[in-house]
């Protein structure tokens, strides 16, 4: 559960450790040498993790000349034009907007519909409850790639539906968002069902006494109580949707409708021919920013939300 997951992070340094007067085999000279060695490994991995990204960020500030003659050096100044070229000429601005539109829709729907489904499955007895639940959970181990081909045709065929077809079909923001919602349902329902089950029944009963209907009980009482679970799951789904690559590749085939990760992949494939490396790295930095900001702001929730996914 999220609430218990959030605890352990970082507590290693602030736990008031008891003074122990026992002999400590690790503290001697040999122990210190091992300690230094271990510290070295930790630092080494820290560098391996950060250096490629730092290099990419530094490269986004260089001119193409600097990049080619001295790829490992520091930039002479900050070449803002890289960002302008990435945003306009390389279409990253359009891709960014596309990503924002799709993820705004898909995240709202995933959280709302996922919470609704999970709530009903967790708190109401009705025939078929277990069947619906396991139908969702079964999706957890299905590989996306098996669904890829038929999904393409399902989405294409929705474009032929009278009236609403014009909003669906291929190259539609709504279609891609709905596909994201569908693929997020198994884990969202799984996680939130467990969460709604842990909420105390007494509050719900009090709500009923006050004359709540089923709907107002959910929106006024249960949903606000589930906020911690919903937030960590929303972060999990945000990252999943924002980073998605293969689903948009299949559905958004029109160049102007590409989402950020997909557009960046195409840009990288073409960069060799245009030789505009620094604009590619500027685009990469633009794509990196939202994820970096979300991560730094919600670091604890992101870590607990993502790891909770495995521990369930």
């Amino acid at each position, binding site marked *: 559960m999220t609430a218990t997951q959030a605890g352990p992070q970082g507590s290693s340094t602030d736990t008031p450790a008891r003074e122990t007067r026992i002999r400590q085999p690790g503290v001697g000279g040999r122990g210190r040498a091992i300690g230094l060695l271990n510290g070295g490994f930790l630092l080494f991995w820290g560098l391996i*993790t950060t250096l490629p990204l730092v290099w990419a960020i530094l490269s986004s500030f260089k001119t193409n000349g600097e990049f080619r003659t001295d790829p490992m050096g520091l930039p002479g100044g900050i070449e803002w034009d890289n960002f302008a070229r990435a945003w306009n000429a390389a279409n990253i601005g359009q891709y960014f907007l596309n990503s924002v539109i799709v993820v705004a829709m898909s995240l709202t729907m995933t959280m709302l519909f996922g919470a609704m489904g999970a709530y009903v499955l967790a708190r109401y007895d009705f025939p078929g409850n277990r069947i619906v639940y396991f139908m969702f959970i079964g999706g957890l181990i299905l590989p996306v790639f098996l*669904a890829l081909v038929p*999904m393409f045709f399902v989405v294409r065929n929705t474009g032929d539906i009278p009236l609403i077809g014009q909003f669906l079909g291929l190259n539609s923001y709504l279609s891609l968002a709905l596909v994201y919602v569908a693929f997020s349902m198994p884990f969202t329902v799984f996680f939130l069902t467990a969460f709604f089950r842990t909420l105390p029944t007494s509050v719900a009963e009090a709500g009923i006494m006050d004359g709540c209907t089923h709907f107002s009980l959910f929106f006024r009482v249960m949903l606000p109580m589930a906020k911690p679970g919903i937030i960590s799951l929303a972060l999990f789904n945000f990252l999943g949707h924002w980073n998605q690559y293969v689903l948009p*590749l299949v559905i958004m085939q029109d160049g102007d409708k590409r989402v950020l990760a997909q557009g960046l992949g195409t840009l990288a494939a073409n960069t060799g021919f245009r030789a505009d490396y620094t604009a590619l790295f500027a685009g990469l930095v633009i794509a990196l920013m939202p994820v970096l900001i*979300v991560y730094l702001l919600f670091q604890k929730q*992101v870590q607990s939300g993502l790891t909770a996914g495995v521990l369930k």
Partner: protein
Amino acid sequence: MTALRHGKYPFILAFLLPPVGIYVLYMLSPYVQAIYISLTDWSGLTASQTFIGFDNYVEMWNDDQLRTALRNNLILLVVVPVLTVMLALFFASMLNVGGRGRGQAITGVRGSSIYKVVYFFPQVLPHAIVAIVFAYVFAPENAGGILNNILEAIGLGNLTQLWLGEPKYLIWIVVLVMTWAFVGFYVVLFSAAMQSIPKDIYEAALLDGANRMTTFRKVTLPLVWDTVQVGWVYMAIQAMDGFAIVHIMLGVNGGVQGAGDVLGVAIYRAAFAQSDFGYAAAIGVLMLVLTMTIVVLFFRVLRRERVELA
């Protein structure tokens, strides 16, 4: 809930309809259709699909490129989790129980919370970005080429290679990139498990004169084994993917001579480059069987006696 008996079923229906509807239309129905499509020779252009039985599966058996992809997937499946779990256990134990001194029996090393923030970061990055950055890590010197430039700088210039131009390296490069992306997540996961081990157990081990290695083998590892096991299965499923990394770093054909191909890319290529949707679906079924087998196998083989923390 007697007071609310009225209107219960309309409410349940209204709440279940949107999630179930979207899920069934866009996710479940494609899976069911995939199995039928895999038995046809559908090119996607015609309305009719000719039923050809298991011909696609026979074709898979004789497809050398697919065999490469399958072999690569098996490498990813075995090597990535082993490497990742080992590195993550090592770093997690360093961060949480590695420090000894300053009067404390068991503590993390200094700066461990910062390390956790840094290590975890690749997990939130889009694989597309990871792939692009690493395409430049392994590029030739004059096109970025971080690795070659570093080798040059530390006097190992004779080790420089056209890394992505050499078929035999390709899948191992993918292994390294995936491991790079995964380790931090498991460090944090295992850290959480290690934090929940009571400190007295370590103090008792210290009193008995156990050294670091023994403490790790006899105390830490058994107590986090459940988490390791679950993480392992999760990672095996993740490692089946590899699509974005291979597609961007090596291209839709799986790199030089197709040597870095994986099943996900093979499916995409068969469907959207060669319009052989029946064949693509058949590879998808193979992938499903493989995933199921892994999940069942891992839970059978890895399940050990549970250790209860009193």
